[in-house]
Structure formats: structure tokens, C-alpha cells
């Protein structure tokens, strides 16, 4: 008897997984050759079977194999999944934290000053919808370094949600709390750190959470373009190798890492959240 909702949800989840994997597994196997192969099939050497998506059992086998030694390095085109993910995470985090620094500082400025808000808003609205990869050629031309260009692309795509949320959070801090700071003669710096920052923190963190999600989406595409290392490059490389088992495995790994990044940010959000 399962009373707890969590327990029941887990059972249903596993059921779905089993059904899904089962269907996938069954459909992935070639139907038993009941009749003799056609001439064409004979000519192709039974290649028809090769075009099928690999079954989950193969993916699981590959996952066990890769995850048992994730950090091996056997040359430029043969690195462990751990190394590839580490490269991607390094690029995402460096671009992301640079963006956070700039976005939170500028967001404070924009949020505190209605003049800056109004004068900078048109630029933000134009720059924000630009696909981050559209910056890539310009970045490559100006920076002349593919590694730094990838980081720049992460920087530019993760800056906007943080900038907009910080500005909004700072601008909508309740007047009463600002008045509390004023009647206590707090300096502008102390007001910013002891009243406005904690008051706007949940909104800022929401922006940071959106940004890390976008950054992780974008790094895969950016690394496909830039090449060399990283999970995006890995996916593309395995596609070129026609190793679909590895492609599926790395897609899953992208999902898992993205989820972990989001969970980390959500844990921080919980720390700064307050109830009015």
C-alpha cells in the first residue's frame, strides 16, 4: 500500500520509463529475416538494419562503458565524456559569471535611476532577442580566438535575463523599505547592500536561473560551431562518426548536467527567498 504521493509518483515514473524503453527496444531490433533477402538488400549487405536508431540496451551499455572511465584522454578526437562536459561547464560558468557581474552592477544602476532605465531600455530591447550564435562571426573576427568567442557567446546570451531581472527587482523594491533606510540615515552603499540587495535578491536569482538554462542550451550549439572540445563538439563528432549510440548517450548527459545546474541555482534561490 503506497500512501505517499511521492512514492506513487515514483512508481508511475518508472512505469512510463519501462514502457518507453520497452517500445524503443522492440522497435529498434530488425524484424527477423523471415523471407530471403531481396537482391537490393543483398547488394547493400543488410545495411537497412544499420539505419535504425540504436536500442536503449546499447545506449546503457555505452553509458556504463563511458562513465566507468570518464576522464581518459586518447588524443584530440578521443576524450572521455567527463573531460568534454568539464570543458563545456568551464565555458558556461566563466561566461555566465562575467555576465552576472556586469548584469547585476548595471541592473542596479538601471533599476535605481529612472533616467537610465528609460534611456537604456531601447538598446536592451533590441539586443535581447538576437540569437547568441549570430554574434559568433563578429566575435571570431574581433577576438580572433575560438575558445574566447564561445565564452563571449555565453556571456552575451546570459546577460539579458539577469540584467532585466535585476533592474526590475531593484526598481520595484517597496517604497516603505527604502523609507526605512532613509529614516535610519543609511548611506547609499549600506542601503544598497542591506535593503535593496536582499529585497531584490529573489528576483535577481530568478534571472540567474533563467540565464544558466539559456547558457547551457547555447553552449552545445556554440561548440558545434567552434569545435575542438566540449559536449557540443562531442555530439557533432559522434554524428560524423555515425556513432548514434554515443549521440544519444551525450544527449542524455546534456540533460542531466542542465538539470544539476538548475538545481544548484534553485537551492541558492531558496536561501534568499523571503515571505512578505
Amino acid at each position, binding site marked *: 500500500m503506497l500512501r505517499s504521493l511521492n512514492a506513487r509518483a515514483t512508481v508511475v515514473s518508472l512505469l512510463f520509463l519501462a514502457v518507453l524503453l520497452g517500445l524503443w527496444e522492440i522497435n529498434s531490433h530488425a524484424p527477423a529475416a523471415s523471407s530471403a533477402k531481396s537482391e537490393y538488400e543483398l547488394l547493400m549487405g543488410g545495411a537497412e538494419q544499420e539505419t535504425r536508431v540504436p536500442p536503449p540496451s546499447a545506449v546503457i551499455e555505452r553509458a556504463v562503458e563511458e562513465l566507468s572511465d570518464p576522464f581518459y584522454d586518447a588524443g584530440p578526437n578521443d576524450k572521455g565524456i567527463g573531460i568534454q562536459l568539464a570543458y563545456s561547464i568551464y565555458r558556461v560558468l566563466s561566461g555566465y559569471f562575467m555576465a552576472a557581474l556586469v548584469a547585476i552592477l548595471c541592473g542596479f544602476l538601471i533599476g535605481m535611476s529612472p533616467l537610465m532605465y528609460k534611456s537604456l531600455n531601447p538598446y536592451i530591447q533590441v539586443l535581447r532577442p538576437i540569437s547568441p550564435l549570430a554574434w559568433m562571426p563578429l566575435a571570431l573576427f574581433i577576438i580572433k580566438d575560438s575558445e574566447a568567442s564561445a565564452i563571449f557567446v555565453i556571456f552575451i546570451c546570459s546577460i539579458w535575463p539577469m540584467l532585466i531581472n535585476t533592474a526590475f527587482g531593484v526598481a520595484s523594491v517597496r517604497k*516603505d*523599505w527604502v*523609507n*526605512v533606510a*532613509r*529614516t*535610519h*540615515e*543609511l548611506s547609499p552603499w549600506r542601503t544598497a547592500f*542591506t*535593503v535593496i540587495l*536582499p*529585497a531584490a*535578491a529573489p528576483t535577481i536569482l530568478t534571472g540567474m536561473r533563467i540565464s544558466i538554462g539559456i547558457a547551457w542550451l547555447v553552449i552545445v550549439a556554440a561548440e558545434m560551431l567552434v569545435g575542438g572540445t566540449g559536449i557540443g563538439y562531442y555530439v557533432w563528432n559522434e554524428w560524423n562518426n555515425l556513432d548514434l549510440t554515443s549521440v544519444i548517450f551525450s544527449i542524455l548527459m546534456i540533460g542531466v548536467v542542465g538539470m544539476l545546474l538548475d538545481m544548484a541555482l534553485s537551492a541558492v534561490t531558496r536561501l*534568499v527567498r*523571503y*515571505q*512578505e
Partner: protein
Amino acid sequence: MKHFLQVQGLAKRYPSPDGKGRLTVFEDANFTVEKGEFVCVIGHSGCGKSTILNILAGLDEASAGTVIMNGKEVAGPSLQRGVVFQNYSLLPWLSALNNVAFGVRARWPEWNKWQVTEHSMKFLELVSLKDAINRKPAQLSGGMRQRVSIARAFATQPQLLLLDEPFGALDALTRGVIQEELLKIWHETKQTVFMITHDVDEAILLSDRVLLMTNGPHARVAESVKIAIPRPRDRNSVIHHPAYYRIRNHLVEFLLSRSRELTDHAARSGENMNTDPAAIPLEVDPSLENSGIPDLALKRRTARAQVIDHLKPTSTSA
């Protein structure tokens, strides 16, 4: 004679919605407050009492006139004037203790952590919140939040304490309890208090003097009513004092009719009526027998005020 707080010719005007003229909320407000005095302001909504309080706090700017406290003109907010807002204005991410400590730290930046905590605790104890110090405002009831807010304001020991309808959002029972706590803490600290209220009984219980404002727009501070009931007062005994109903009737009668009549009168006579901008409010002491109110009229007013009492539960003391 030098007064602790002197308000001269204070006025607040906003641009009218059509953009042509100016809308005068109140004007020619002249009054004084002495050191250690507890003064309440009563008036209908829209007469600008909260605006006056915000100007005294330095959070709002007057269109005309000056506020002089302790010989210095008030310009901008200061720790010398503590404010208790109607909506408590506690910082929701800080515990009750830290909210009070926030004020204490701002007032005495040189104090160490231990001194700050000890001083904050003393004031939280005065408002009987010793057991709830680690709770966040969201985990406190409305009455407890307002107690924290009062503790924060008293703990910074300002020269003037401004209370903006501090009990307006509380139920009658809680209000009664916190009123007595406010009296207790006021007796201990000898603060000068300027408080806005809607509640006539609250004003009589707490204050030395009640300033009555006429209706806005073009509101004025019309009367300064002395509350000649000896202290210490408490809610049970104050209503049995012989002067209580004379004072109460005078205040209720002002709110019911004269607050409007005076404004109407001023409006009828228009701009060319030479009201004296320096006119001080009429000083009234209803407790005296010959207070200028005919006995017959007083009786009629008493009857009317009692009827109003039934209709207006919020104005009766719990």
C-alpha cells in the same frame, strides 16, 4: 517662548489633474509640540495628516512653510525622528530581533554585536516579544509585527517619534493591548510623540493634546484640544473620569459637523477671505465647565454621539 517642535505655515499643493491649477491639500498649518508631549492628530481621510507626518519625518517636502525642531530646520530624514508606519515596514528577510537591531546598528554604528543585541532585546521585552525574537515578520501576527515596529522606533531613541496610524490595521482587542504597551514604553522613555489616528478614544487615552484638522482640500489645523485627564491612565479608569465624555463629545462633534462646516465656510468666502496665515489653532479644554459650549447643546451632542457609537464600532474602545 521656544518650542521643541515648531510648524509654521505648512502647506502641501499638488498640480491638479487637469494640469491647470494646483490642488491644495492643506495650508497654513501652524502648531507646536513641547518636549515629552504626546500629541495626536485627528481628521478625516484626505485632510493631509499623513502628509504632515511625512514632512515632519523628512520623507516628503512641503510646498510652503517650515518645520523647526530643536532650533534646527527639518530637511530630509534623520535618525532624530523615528517613524512607525501603518503597514509596519519591517524588513521581511530579517527576524524580529534583527529588525530592531537594524535600527540600533544604524543609530550607534560604533557598538559591538553584543551591545546591539542587548539593547534590542531590552526594547523587545518592553513590548512583550521576548519569546518571538527569532521569527520572521511573516510568522508574526499583525499585532506582533506592529510591536516589533514600535520597538525598533523606540530603540533608536529619537528626539521625536512619529506614529502614522500605528493601530489602524489591528482588531480592537489587540489594539487595546498595544495601546497600553505604548503608554508603558512612553512612560519609561519620556519620548516626544506625534501620532496620527482615526480613533477618538485612542487619542484621549494616549495624548496630552489632540490637534483637529478640518476636511481637505484646503484643510487646516483648526483646534488644539487639551486632554485634562491625569496620568497614568488605563483603558478601564479613563472612561470613568468626569471629563472623559465632555472631551469625547467635543472631538466627535468636531469630526461629525464642524470639520466640514469650517472647510465649507472657508470655501464660500473664497480667496478674498483674509484668513490669517499665521493663525494658531484655537485652544480648547472641554474638561472645564465653562468651555464655551452651552450645556443644552452639549446634551444634544452627547445623545448624537452615542448613536454614532453604535453605528461606528471602530471608534469605541475595546
